């Protein structure tokens, strides 16, 4: 096939210079507010709290949702583990597919967030676990730290390692296949809730 490709390019098209004068970075007056607004546009629930308020916020959200059994990446900060809830850590990938399918939800952090597009990126790193954890449970509660927020997509990609398994999440699972009506929740989590932690 390489021979066919070479033959097809017999006219020797010259090397192309890619014009890169699009915006790599962009300014935002308040990136956290922008992120919150853009995630809400996907009809996801967003909260903003300071670091001290985070454990309380997590507990309140889980209680409001009636979530009693939650899946957890093994390295979640202990202060996030609301005491009223049974936490199922995914030690050595111990959570089976059936278990995850039947569990109330999952709590994770993220690697990077994109304010302009309201996107959370998970890279299986700290406090995120493997990909299936945020796929099978019907409810995903995600914590974003202020220092993880980039304004534009190019800024976010520059912070990521493309060889890790990455999941970009922009709102809950959705389809528009029936008369272009947006319906949340087909196969991925139907409810996405995001806590943005201000002040680092």
């Amino acid at each position, binding site marked *: 096939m390489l021979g066919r490709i070479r033959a097809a390019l017999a006219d020797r098209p010259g090397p192309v210079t890619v014009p890169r004068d699009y915006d790599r970075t962009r300014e935002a007056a308040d990136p956290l507010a922008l992120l919150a607004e853009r995630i809400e546009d996907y009809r996801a629930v967003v909260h903003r709290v300071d670091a001290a308020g985070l454990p309380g916020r997590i507990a309140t959200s889980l209680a409001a949702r009636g979530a009693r059994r939650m899946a957890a990446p093994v390295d979640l900060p202990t202060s996030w583990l609301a005491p009223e809830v049974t936490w199922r850590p995914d030690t050595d990938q111990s959570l089976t597919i059936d278990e995850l399918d039947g569990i109330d939800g999952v709590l994770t952090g993220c690697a990077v967030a994109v304010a302009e597009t309201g996107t959370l990126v998970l890279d299986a790193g700290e406090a995120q676990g493997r990909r299936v954890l945020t796929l099978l449970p019907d409810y995903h509660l995600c914590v974003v730290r202020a220092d993880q927020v980039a304004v534009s997509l190019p800024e976010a990609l520059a912070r990521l390692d493309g060889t*890790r398994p990455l999941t970009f999440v922009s709102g809950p699972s959705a389809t528009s*296949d029936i008369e272009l009506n947006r*319906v949340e929740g087909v196969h991925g989590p139907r409810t996405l809730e995001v806590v943005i932690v201000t002040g680092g």
Partner: protein
Amino acid sequence: MAGRGVTWLGTPTFPKAARTALADTQLRTNLRNATTTIRGKRAGAVAELPDWEPLRLAGEAIKDEVLADLGTYLERLEAAVTARGGVVHWARDAVEANEIVLRLTREAGADEVVKIKSMATAEIGLNEALAEGGVQAVETDLAELIVQLGEDRPSHILVPAIHRNRSEIREIFRREMPDVPEDITDEPRELAEAARRHLRQKFLTAKVAVSGANFAVADSGSVVVVESEGNGRMCLTLPETLITVMGIEKVVPTWSDLEVFLQLLPRSSTAERMNPYTSVWTGVTPGDGPKNFHLILLDNGRTDTLADTVGRQALRCIRCSACLNVCPVYERTGGAAYGSVYPGPIGAILTPQLLGEDVDKQARSLPYASSLCGACFEVCPVRIDIPEVLVHLRAEAVQAKNKTSPEAVAMAALAWAMGDARRWAAAQKAAGIGRLLSRGGRITSLPWPGSKWTSSRDLPAPPKETFRAWWRRTRG
């Protein structure tokens, strides 16, 4: 079977199929509502980015750079994927690609595969080939599922069941899903829920998944799939074996090039700032996702397309479907009339090129499925000059038929005129081409072969000012 697939065997030529489609008022209503809605939303999503034109120019140039040195980038991709534990296969045509998938599926001990919507696998007729080999392919994208259960043809790249309304979908589900509740209504929410339940068990037990790819990064070996429902994530994460079939033109040089395409694609396609899910993976990651990853690099007519210096730009296409939604011809006929996996303006130029020497009468009629209004170029995120390629292919088709027919002369002249922006502007000013033929803003008759089209339907006349003239006036 035909070596390359792409078209559906036995479909009538475009003018004939179009006449049938035009008689279907329900279809036309569904389509018009859908394309009008997406068109409006897309314009809004695009207007939000202050650097949209620079992004388009970068997208165009990155793709051209890849095409100009395709062999190098593919070898780089192969090396990177292999280094991360994946296996790369090269498939010259549909038959070879299908054989590889069937063999890998059997080796995995499976008689069923779950699939995430993929144009490449539709192009090679994978589902049919697997069925012949005793393997059932289950489409998991809601729209694809509707099409599969309805034993129907997809009609749009992005929303394949756009021609079906909710009550039609309800009927299909009631007829074809054994587990659907008796009293299911036609509420989209309930229908989506039925699909969720129907497919859940399949996801949880599938051993093999088949996907396409939106992009693959040569430097890192990362493969990218963009989707909405999470069925893609299911396929990419749960089964033990993942087989990805990818057209060779989908490669991009470096990780940071994705910053261009991940901005261009969602806004052009679903008119969203970002689609709900984008997955990126590289080879295999122990403890996370499939244990075996196979990447099939598919030619199937792409190197032939690459050899055509005018036509090769079609390989820049990122399958966003924006050109479908602005096309006056597509809006009236729907995708099925094109008789090809690739409908609309991009289908009209890609289908005959991919088929190469296999090209049949039906595919040859496709470059005429256009009013040359230029709207498709205006919206294309990678600036494919579809009208230019259409005229080029028409000239070729006529030449093949009869070197000195009046059509040949006219088409060759048109191709020559369109080959250069200045010549084109002059020609249009001099002739007002389409408008000469129009009465009251409708074109009522076109010379052959356009006559085959206009005899069944009036076309809207091209605007007084051509797109190019407008472009020069407003940007020049």
